[in-house]
């Protein structure tokens, strides 16, 4: 009988208890996968959107809440004069409850700006000019709103024609209603206002020059802030809160898992006092007994982790299709998350096994055999 056989036999001796413990760990790990996957997915979606459009810096005034406050569109002209800036464009983006659908991102873009370039028309046509009372819908937005080319969509009191369906290359773009800035300003009663300026820097602009440019922008627009595209996610309070919430909920779930495994391993040690006594009597060193218990708990963690990853991934896939999430989030199911989740499960197993392992190593062979 090998060491591994002893380990697996220990777990198989009480299949129901082992199964229930596995269920406990796997639910905890599934929560990690689902919650963290959502948070990471959201971050990744934003990052992907910025990459696809080719934005280096974003200027906004984030004091207004989740969406930045509006400011005068003329700020863009002043920023465009700065030496390291190659190109700028401005947007007015708002989360709006459209018709009977949930909140949806509506993105008004300066006509001719580079944020239009990555949009690929998959059906219908692009908006003709900046004054055409029309929108194009991201693929997911069209699904959520149940609209097709030729329909109309009502934004505030205006009915706008849906002239095209577009693929924007990211879930954020695909989940948005896109129209010209001029029409957006008119419809939302924000004439002359924007809430984002997107910036492309001169090629080869180094880190110091970027910091310098951000400082110059702060002088031009003291209420606003220029953030490097790569830092948008990291500096956003909303993202930080989402990340903290997902991890704190996950930690709770993991704690429950730890307690479950610890309970199972303690019970195992108590039930196998006699067996452990014999192993010690036939020459097993205490460290080897400890290792056996730790291996059992780690194996529980590993199996629970694998099961949890499968459950979590399935849960995410189902959640992704729900109307509340569809088009807004693209969960992250990267190998990195899945591997981290399994590692967490194994670590959980090991931590849970520490006390039972210590208890087992403290047994006296003579007393244990008699028990």
């Amino acid at each position, binding site marked *: 009988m090998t060491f591994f056989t002893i380990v697996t036999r220990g777990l198989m001796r009480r299949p129901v208890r082992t199964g229930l413990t596995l269920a406990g760990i796997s639910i905890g790990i599934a929560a990690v996968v689902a919650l963290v996957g959502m948070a990471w997915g959201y971050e990744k979606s934003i990052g992907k959107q910025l990459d696809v459009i080719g934005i280096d810096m974003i200027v906004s005034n984030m004091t207004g809440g989740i969406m930045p406050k509006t400011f005068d569109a003329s700020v863009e002209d002043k920023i465009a004069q700065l030496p390291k800036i190659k190109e700028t464009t401005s947007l007015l983006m708002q989360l709006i*409850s459209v018709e009977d659908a949930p909140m949806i991102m509506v993105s008004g873009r300066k006509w001719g700006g580079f944020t239009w370039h990555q949009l690929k028309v998959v059906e219908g046509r692009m908006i003709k000019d900046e004054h055409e009372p029309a929108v194009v819908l991201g693929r997911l937005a069209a699904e959520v709103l149940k609209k097709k080319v030729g329909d109309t969509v009502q934004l505030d009191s205006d009915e706008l024609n849906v002239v095209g369906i577009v693929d924007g290359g990211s879930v954020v773009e695909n989940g948005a209603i896109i129209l010209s800035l001029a029409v957006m300003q008119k419809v*939302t009663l924000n004439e002359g206002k924007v809430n984002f300026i997107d910036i492309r820097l001169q090629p080869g602009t180094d880190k110091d020059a970027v910091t310098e440019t951000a400082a110059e922008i702060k002088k031009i627009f003291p209420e606003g802030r220029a953030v490097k595209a790569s830092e948008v996610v990291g500096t956003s309070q909303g993202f930080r809160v989402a990340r903290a919430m997902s991890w704190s909920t996950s930690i709770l779930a993991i704690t429950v898992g730890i307690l479950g495994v610890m309970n199972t391993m303690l019970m195992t040690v108590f039930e196998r006092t006699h067996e452990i006594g014999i192993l010690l009597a036939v020459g097993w060193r205490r460290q080897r007994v400890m290792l056996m218990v730790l291996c059992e708990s780690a194996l529980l963690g590993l199996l629970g982790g694998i099961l949890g990853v499968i459950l979590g991934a399935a849960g995410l896939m189902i959640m992704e299709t729900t109307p509340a999430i569809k088009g807004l989030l693209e969960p992250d199911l990267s190998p990195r998350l899945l591997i981290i989740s399994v590692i967490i499960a194994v670590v959980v197993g090991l931590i849970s096994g520490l006390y039972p392992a210590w208890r087992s190593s403290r047994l006296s062979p003579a007393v244990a055999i008699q028990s």
Partner: protein
Amino acid sequence: MKLVPFLTAMVGGLLFSTAAMSADAPGAAELAAKLSDLQQDGSTFIRVKMIVSSPANPSDPKTTLQLQIKSRRSAGQTDVVYQVLFPKERKGEAVLISSSGNGATFTPPDKLQTFDAAKFKESLLGSDLSYEDVSDNFFAWKDQSLAGTETVSNVSCQILESKPKGARSSYTSVKSWIDTKRMVPLRVEKYGAGGQLVRRIDTSDVANVDGRNVLAMLVIRRPGHATATEMDGSRIKRGVAYTDADFTAEGLKNLSGPKGGE
């Protein structure tokens, strides 16, 4: 997760917003006066989604309306216009309610009707609110008393009881559960003759917009009625410019939003 920056309030006297402030257990009159002052927030323009559903029969179809609300409020007068933007078949439907006791309704293409205070108990656009609910300011009533404290949504609230005493109202009293830190009501109960509960308004979300606390989401229920109305504020602009014409029966036909405001 509903992510929304912008939001609104509407309880009892209607949509109102309050500046972020705190109060250390003020007396009833003081508390009511503060709330009343905060409710007189000048000219505002608000966008709201209103859903009328039937919780008892979830399979019944829901009615979803997108509304815009134009209001101007001062110490002596409140004028409010509700205009339907969605669905298409009801677009343009509008109601004007004035605290002076009159109002008008408009149904496109050209049906314009005026009404007086006798109709103030009627339902607002098929919801669980009445015309009176959106024009009254019960915090301005003279008879105010504190009726204890109670925790609502994990927030300790002062219960303020307001009685019309001379003011025109179909209610005999209104109890409001006030979060005195944020100065917003988290629950309002309106009682009719005989002391029976007529309407209950629960605040399900409070948002802070530019330093002002606004009730972002409300649910209105009427005991004995199958429906419930959810009002979800999506945008608020304060300090907008209205003309007197906007608050006339003819003005109901104008769906354009106001100029200016923040």
